[in-house]
């Protein structure tokens, strides 16, 4: 026994604790590994900190410390009056705030703008939260109901008829145009080498116009009857609701399965009726506020939201067209998309402002804001088409094939199987398009509309507030608004992207 204890070593006491390893996490670890791990890095850190110091401190001094907070006019923001070097001139923003938010919208009517902002926010926020239910109803309200309600709220005015008279009016325009084209060809055939061909074509068109005239005669007769009644809007509304609901009921499968469709249609019409009643559209609606009085953030938001709402259907149609196997439709979609993506937005706005009025009938004047909206919608639609095409390409082929195997038609395959998945994939892309659209709305100030930036620029020329720091103050304020919107949306897009890619995270 003693031999063993002599030849072998048995530890009698505990090993001394070793020092903890250098910390590589937390703030201390960050300091050690990312800031001060080598002489070169120490130098870079010091340089970086100096740079930040010389940028952040003057900015904070300008915005907060040296700023003037109260005052009546420019004299408050002059160095002589303030007694120190003057930074931001916030009274100027206070004086111009309403102009920057509403433009020259009449003061008594501003509650309409606020109500529209509120409605938009109330519909948009639940749409952005993935947890909340009823996305279908919600997006329907946001994309279809809100634009119409917002138009009558912001612009004012009422309606003289409803579905029947609108359809009749449109068809009559079509009939006149066809007849006009026919007459023109017949006239042209008197002085042309291919006279007989032109004459025949012209007469055919005139004939088509006459046929259309008699085909739509019942509709125009009904329109005249309804307009002559004591409550033209409501009688027209009831007829339209009845006809549309009946058609949907039959299309939805009649007695067998059409009940649900019928209830949905009736509920929609009930909602529309409530809207008409609440806004008094049948009695002329709200007083009309000309769009030339709109301005500031209102115009920025109107253009951005209309642009994104209008660009969705355009984009979906173009993306489907570009993937179609029908040659003419594919070629047209490609040409349309590439054309509008190839030119700068400002030329599109010039096109909409100067050329578009020449293309519509002379007695039909297009409002300045509407022109810009049309330009923006076409431009964004072309970009949106490419985004959506990416989503369509991301849907596995097997999905569409399985749908065809089940016997679904192309329309049903696309609208029920492919598009819902494709649109889910491209939510981040759509949000990114919206960000760039939101930034691009500032361009409308070049075609004489006063959006946020345009109103800001207009406010600089007010002599009552001209001080050396006015411009910097204005840019700081407007920049903050733009930044909050764009940065918020880009974070949201990242959030959705992470959610969609949850299965790929590791």
């Amino acid at each position, binding site marked *: 026994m003693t031999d063993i204890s002599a030849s072998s070593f048995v530890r009698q006491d505990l090993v001394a604790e070793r020092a903890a390893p250098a910390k590589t996490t937390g703030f201390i670890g960050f300091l050690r590994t990312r800031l001060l791990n080598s002489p070169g890095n120490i130098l870079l850190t010091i340089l970086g900190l100096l740079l930040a110091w010389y940028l952040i401190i003057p900015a904070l001094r300008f915005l907060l410390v040296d700023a003037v907070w109260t005052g009546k006019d420019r004299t408050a923001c002059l160095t002589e009056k303030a007694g120190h070097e003057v930074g931001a001139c916030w009274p100027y923003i206070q004086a111009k705030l309403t102009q920057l938010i509403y433009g020259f919208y009449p003061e008594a009517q501003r509650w309409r703008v606020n109500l529209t902002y509120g409605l938009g926010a109330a519909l948009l926020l639940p749409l952005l939260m993935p947890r909340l239910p009823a996305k279908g109803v919600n997006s329907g309200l946001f994309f279809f109901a809100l634009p119409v309600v917002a138009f009558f709220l912001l612009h004012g005015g009422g309606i003289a008829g409803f579905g029947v008279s609108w359809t009749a009016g449109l068809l009559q325009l079509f009939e006149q145009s066809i007849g006009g084209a026919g007459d023109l060809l017949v006239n042209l055939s008197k002085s042309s080498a291919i006279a007989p061909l032109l004459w025949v074509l012209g007469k055919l068109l005139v004939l088509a116009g006459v046929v259309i005239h008699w085909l739509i005669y019942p509709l125009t007769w009904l329109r005249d009857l309804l307009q002559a009644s004591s409550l033209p809007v409501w009688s027209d509304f009831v007829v339209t609701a009845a006809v549309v609901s009946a058609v949907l009921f039959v299309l939805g499968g009649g007695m067998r399965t059409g009940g649900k469709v019928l209830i949905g249609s009736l509920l929609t019409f009930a909602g529309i009726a409530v809207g008409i009643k609440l806004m008094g559209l049948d009695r002329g609606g709200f007083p009309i506020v000309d769009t030339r009085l709109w301005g500031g953030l209102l115009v920025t938001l109107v253009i951005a939201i209309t642009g994104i709402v209008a660009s969705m259907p355009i984009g979906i149609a173009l993306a489907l067209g570009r993937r179609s*196997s029908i040659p003419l439709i594919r070629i047209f979609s490609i040409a349309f998309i590439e054309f509008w993506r*190839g030119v700068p937005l400002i030329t599109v706005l010039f096109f909409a402002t100067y050329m578009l009025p020449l293309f519509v009938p002379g007695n039909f004047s297009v409002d300045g804001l509407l022109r810009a909206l049309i330009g923006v919608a076409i431009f964004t639609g072309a970009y949106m088409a490419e985004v959506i095409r990416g989503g369509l390409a991301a849907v596995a082929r097997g999905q569409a094939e399985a749908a065809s195997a089940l016997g679904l038609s192309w329309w049903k395959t696309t609208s029920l199987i492919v598009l819902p998945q494709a649109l889910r994939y491209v939510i981040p892309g759509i949000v990114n398009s919206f960000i760039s659209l939101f*930034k691009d709305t*500032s361009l409308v100030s070049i075609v004489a509309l006063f959006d946020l930036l345009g109103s800001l620029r207009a406010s600089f020329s007010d002599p009552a507030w001209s001080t050396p720091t006015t*411009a910097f103050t204005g840019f700081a304020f407007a920049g903050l608004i733009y930044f909050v919107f764009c940065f918020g949306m880009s974070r949201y897009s990242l959030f959705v992207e992470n959610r969609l890619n949850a299965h790929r995270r590791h």
Partner: protein
Amino acid sequence: MSIAPRKPPLQLALRLKRALGGKTGWKGVAAQIAFAAILAWIAYEVVANARTNLETQHIASGFGFLNYNAGFDVNQSLIAYNNSDTYWRVFFVGLLNTVLVSVIGIVFATAIGFIVALCRLSPNGVLSRIGGIYVEIVRNLPLLFQILFWYLAVLAALPAPRQSISIFGTFFLNNRGLIVPQPVSEPGLYPFLAALAVGIVVALGLRHFARRALFQRGQMIRIWPYVLGCLVGLPLISMLVFGWPLTFELPQLKGFNFAGGARVIPEFVALTVALSTYTGSFIAEIVRAGVMSVHKGQMEAGSSLGLSRAATLRLIVVPQAMRVIVPPLTSQYLNLTKNSSLAVAIGYPDLVSVFAGTAVSQTGQAIEIIAMTMGVYLLLSLTTSALMSIYGWRINRSMAA
């Protein structure tokens, strides 16, 4: 017994149906006819309305106006121009100004983009955060906002010429723009340029020769001393023989303004600064994504093959990163060129500003002028996308090989 497969039947009708109507067949043909009819109707309406409207407003049509006298001045032109020149010349003056601001903007944007990307990729915590903040701020503000900020706030706040901010006594910044030394050509200029051109051609030839030798015979030839000799030596010799190619005339403050030197108008300065910082932030993100897309294992594989760190970067990492970087980088260059049309907001005389702006308001011929302006940009972007698809095709081929 032959087992060769039978040829499929010709089925001409089927092929015709397929070519005309796609997968949907005759139904597709009918859809196309309806679609064409609608397009024709819209086109007819547009043309008919335009004709009536132009007649009632007494606006001429056609491109004849291009030969008329423009009668207005342009405050910056690269080619000789005065107000008795034609609209054609206005078009080219505007086009050249667009090209000038785009090229200079692209150079600066690339430099800013790569520097910021390096900062963001740097292991140093402070630098990467500064880079990140720069990118977030600049990307989230509208470009027009930034152009106006530089033009209306920063440049307008600069002092008058007498109190100019001097940069090394050669550049002067004031509220009338940037005064730079003016290069004056000397007799030695043309021999110098010729020597430089010869040097570049010879260097390219040498590189081609060396690569052929490496790929065909496995022979490494050291060419850099000769390339250096061609690129630096030849121009040096020409300078020794023929004298300086250029001298610079320095600006001097005389009275209330500068004499000598060249003045860069403030609109140009504001536009270039805004365009290059804005596009630079997008380029930074592209470069960062490109570098991060190269797998870490590539660097490790390079060093396990015995390549030095520099050689690994040059031969393995950068070529793979460039493959990811180049297509979006090109589209950023294109965006910058298209965005230069925002010059109209501050009155820099680019194509949109002088041609689609002033010329439209003078002649009223909006259709022709805006179509021409759009055509220029469209041509540019279609050319770029064609070049990019050739590039993509070559990359795919080299990846497949």
